């Protein structure tokens, strides 16, 4: 191809490929995306599966499977499982170490992908950690257990005189205040309980809830007695000192990444109290949970962030979300003001393109053509390749812009 021909071709390719890129970006924007918590959970499961030695993974089919399984069995007999190490926040944990989760929860990570998360206020002790056996004794509070099964390795969770034998399982253990019994919520897999008042032949399979230990379930009306909020002082001091405040259940749900459940638990507790005491990151997650639950309380949580953490990144993000909520209900003027608040507080923020793009639509829907054009010019200056670039260009050139949902102002509460 000659040089002029190449120039013409590249010119046309650049122009048409730009349109194709915008089409694909628009398609992508329409695709539902799984929640981050769901995505991470699926990724972690797959990472753990691949980290297992190849001979322990399911083989493809037929003879290959038989050979691999046979090899795996042989390797189990000859080699046993791989050595296992554990860590908390990057620091190694050894047998005998005591784990204390104070204000924040603590995650105990094993290099095979297994995890044990302690709620705030919980304590536990690592009593065994080798290739064949892992044992964690829970002394106080609640833990979430997520164990990756490996042939030749036994996992135990101890509670008082009882032990829970784990078989590739996800479950929660909430120790009673007395520390000798617990409530167990089994969400995946199966476990067996060994100890007084337990039948070792009985296998509990998910989903299931049961108790470990001999004592009756604690009286829910007594302070700190609910399984998931249990906490106790040291035995010597228990008769004299009041038990420390138990962490609210919504914090445990949040630490698991289950924001919707966290919101629902917080709503049960009373959102006013939560808004008054939670930190900004917690409130943002709870607001996200409210949105996932389809609750209008999301607005109250975002407003709480604005009131309590003015000037922070969280407050700016809350302004954007308040604008989006107004936008979704067709309250164009209110939405436009909230987006303006976000852009004023975080002109280079990660949501600036979307805020500015939506401002264009707000102005158009309000019939403020000059303002819409001004937004469009600003948008193109900053985001020439943004998802609203085509709309902005057409608006500036005076061509008809694709119809967008239009309607009158339906919202009333303006931003401060």
């Amino acid at each position: 191809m000659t040089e002029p021909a190449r120039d013409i071709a590249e010119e046309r390719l650049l122009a048409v490929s730009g349109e194709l890129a915008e089409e694909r970006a628009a398609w992508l924007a329409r695709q539902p995306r799984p929640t981050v918590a769901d995505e991470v959970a699926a990724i972690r499961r797959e990472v753990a599966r691949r980290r297992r030695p190849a001979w322990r993974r399911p083989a493809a089919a037929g003879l290959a499977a038989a050979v691999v399984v046979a090899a795996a069995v042989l390797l189990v007999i000859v080699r046993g499982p791989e050595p296992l190490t554990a860590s908390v926040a990057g620091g190694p944990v050894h047998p005998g170490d005591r784990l204390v989760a104070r204000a924040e929860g603590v995650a105990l990570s094993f290099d095979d992908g297994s995890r044990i998360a302690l709620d705030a206020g919980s304590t536990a002790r690592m009593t065994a950690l080798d290739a064949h056996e892992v044992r964690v004794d829970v002394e106080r509070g609640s833990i979430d257990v997520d164990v990756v099964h490996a042939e030749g390795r036994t996992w135990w969770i101890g509670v008082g005189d009882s032990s829970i034998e784990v078989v590739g399982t996800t479950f929660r253990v909430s120790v009673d205040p007395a520390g000798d019994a617990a409530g167990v919520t089994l969400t995946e897999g199966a476990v067996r309980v060994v100890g007084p008042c337990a039948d070792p032949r009985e296998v509990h399979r998910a989903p299931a809830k049961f108790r470990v230990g001999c004592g009756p379930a604690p009286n829910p009306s007594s302070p700190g007695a609910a399984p998931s909020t249990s906490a106790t002082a040291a035995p010597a001091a228990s008769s004299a000192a009041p038990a420390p405040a138990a962490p609210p259940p919504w914090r445990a749900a949040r630490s698991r990444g289950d924001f919707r459940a966290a919101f629902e638990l917080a709503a049960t507790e009373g959102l006013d109290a939560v808004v008054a005491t939670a930190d900004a990151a917690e409130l943002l997650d709870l607001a996200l949970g409210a949105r996932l639950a389809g609750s209008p309380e999301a607005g109250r949580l975002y407003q709480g962030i604005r009131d309590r953490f003015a000037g922070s990144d969280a407050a700016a993000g809350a302004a954007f979300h308040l604008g989006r909520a107004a936008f979704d209900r067709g309250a164009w003027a209110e939405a436009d003001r909230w987006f303006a608040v976000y852009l004023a507080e975080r002109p280079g923020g990660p949501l600036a393109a979307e805020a500015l793009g939506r401002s264009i639509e707000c102005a158009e829907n309000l019939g403020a053509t000059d303002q819409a054009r001004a937004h469009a010019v600003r948008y193109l200056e900053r985001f020439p390749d943004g998802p609203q670039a085509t709309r902005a260009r057409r608006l500036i050139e005076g061509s008809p812009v694709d119809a967008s949902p239009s309607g009158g102002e339906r919202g009333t509460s303006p931003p401060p």
Partner: protein
Amino acid sequence: MLLAVLRLVHDARAAAGDAARAALDGEESPAALHARVVRGERAAERELVARAGPLVRSVIVQLVGPSADLDDLAQETFVRVFLKLADLDEPAALFGFVRSVAVNVAREALRRRRRRWWWRLLPSSDTPEIPTPDPGEGRDAVMALERAIDELEVEERVAFSLRYLGGMTNAEVATAMGVSTGTVKRRLATAETAVVRRCGPALGLARVEEVES
């Protein structure tokens, strides 16, 4: 002159993409985030997936096109990222690393698709879903370009898509593909020629043939 202007616009698009990425990175440095993920902090894992997710999905759609496999390919990307993260030499280049993994995952998906075409066993879930046609002017050219890209060899297709659909520079394409800039230039030249031959008239390039003759 017009070509020079278009090139400037194209470069500006890439710069805007960089700015957006930098703004995203501004929340916490990639190196700090990398360190927290390697330490096993669940919150950091969630943050990485939340921040890099749009980049990963965008790269996959640019290279593979609209596909029912989008979520699976995005998950595969992150699985590989988490498996290799501890070995990353330059934690500051965390998001570049994620992008190069996404490119590799998309490249393998394209190779699998090509093999299935060869065996005529393409399942419906792998059939690209063409977005609802926009009757607007220029749609024919876009569809012709899409078909021409589909017919490119995988390596040429990846280079072409990253350059033209992703707005990346040749050097960025080279980094993302793990090859030299010279190799990228060769692949781009091959791809451009093939695309023009296959859909020149639809792109309004009849004049090209006249010039050539």
